[in-house]
């Protein structure tokens, strides 16, 4: 019953996001600020993780090819498929649930604890629209981050393969071009957009409706991360079934 209550409250909050909008001039400023905090601020960690995980994927693939009948271009092929289909869109979003999600929950939660949200409401401002809408819009730029993640993941795989001596440049490049289906990139971006909305709204919900003090802000951030991850994993399954199966 509690879960149903939360689901209902979450969708009611989503409805409030789109009514009684904040003035465009103010909203534009908020959106740019959130792009800075949520998107640009995530590029460093995304770039670092993507490059090294891409490298690990290619090394593990290369080390597991024992049969001489398997072509060496498989390393590039496997790296590309792993990075584009799963690592960049899904696992990067789960990592961002920790970074971006906890930032959103704690910033909104702190505003709740310090009565800043009440202050907005008393002024006659739709606080849900003011706080959550710019986060949703800025998170819609997430595919650009994931695009960078894809590129750096494959680049990391290429670098690790070459410098580890597992394959040569020509084989790896042949592998990443082999049997390439552009729809796989579309699929990755479609699910990234869905995850972006989840990443913006579930942590916002947990921050907005939190009760208590500073300790509860930390707990809310943890709960938000857990639920965001669960929802991303479940939606990943559903979207994959719908688009690829």
């Amino acid at each position, binding site marked *: 019953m509690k879960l149903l209550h939360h689901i209902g409250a979450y969708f009611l909050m989503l409805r409030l996001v789109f009514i009684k909008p904040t003035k465009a001039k103010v909203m534009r400023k908020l959106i740019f600020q959130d792009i800075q905090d949520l998107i640009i601020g995530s590029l460093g960690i995304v770039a670092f993780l993507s490059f090294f995980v891409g490298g690990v994927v290619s090394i593990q693939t290369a080390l597991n090819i024992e049969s001489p009948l398997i072509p060496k271009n498989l390393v590039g092929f496997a790296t590309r498929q792993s990075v584009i289909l799963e690592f960049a869109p899904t696992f990067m979003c789960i990592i961002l649930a920790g970074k971006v999600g906890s930032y959103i929950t704690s910033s909104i939660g*702190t505003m709740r604890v*310090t009565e*800043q949200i009440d*202050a907005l409401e*008393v*002024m*006659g401002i739709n606080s849900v629209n003011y706080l959550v809408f710019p986060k949703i819009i800025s998170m819609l730029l997430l595919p650009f981050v994931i695009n960078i993640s894809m590129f750096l993941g494959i680049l990391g795989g290429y670098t690790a393969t070459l410098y580890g001596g597992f394959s040569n440049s020509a084989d790896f490049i042949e592998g990443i071009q082999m049997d390439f289906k552009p729809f796989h990139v579309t699929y990755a971006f479609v699910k990234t957009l869905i995850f972006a909305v989840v990443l913006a709204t579930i942590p916002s919900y947990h921050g907005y409706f939190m009760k208590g003090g500073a300790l509860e802000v930390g707990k809310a951030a943890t709960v938000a991360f857990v639920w965001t991850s669960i929802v991303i994993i479940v939606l990943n399954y559903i979207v994959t079934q719908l688009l690829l199966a």
Partner: protein
Amino acid sequence: MIELQNITKSFDGIEILKGISMTFEAGKTNLIIGQSGSGKTVLLKCLLGLHQPNGGDMLFNNQALVEMDDDQRRILRREMGMVFQGSALFDSMTVLENVMFPMQMLTNQSEAIMRKAAEEVIERVNLVDAQQKLPAELSGGMQKRVAIARAVVMKPKYLFCDEPNSGLDPKTAIVIDNLIREITQENNITTVINSHDMNSVMEIGDSILFLKNGVKAWEGSKELIFKTDNEAINDFVYSSNLMKKVKEVYQ
């Protein structure tokens, strides 16, 4: 003027406010006092529209809140200013930006006009030197003054203050009390202050509503508070040794 008519409010079947009736007059500092858990904050939140009363009505300048549609309520909200217990300043904004915020959100005035209005109010609360500082760089008393400036910048008809002195030393508390009273009188605002600070009561208690367990147990003014034989208010007022001594001297 605000008139409360038999206000009731319950949470999960527990009655917090039990038929409160009272008139808060314009140009006066009206205090709601009582122990923690007496229903002061709930009553204030009902006045602000953050809680919907279960029964009764509230008349703002003879306009009944229950009869107002959403647009009328929104307009009424814009005539209200609020000073929160913890000041509730926006952390990422400077003092000037905090004070300008309600105007930026709710009016279409030019930046220059808004800035001028904000600077005037900041000057009124003696914070000219602090206007480019962030709330975290200010003392508790200065934060309260910013909160007052933000609350009155839109020239509200109604000003609500939730424990404006909490966490302040007695001297700063008196400065804040007097600032609220001066602004109330200068602008003929209907000010309602939620407090359990007896210093505030004696300083600015033009009109006092005493709540006990969600019931109006007494109403009067600071002049009457020492003369009443109401057991409930006497029990509250003379709970500290200081006030007992004051009573002895007074008598």
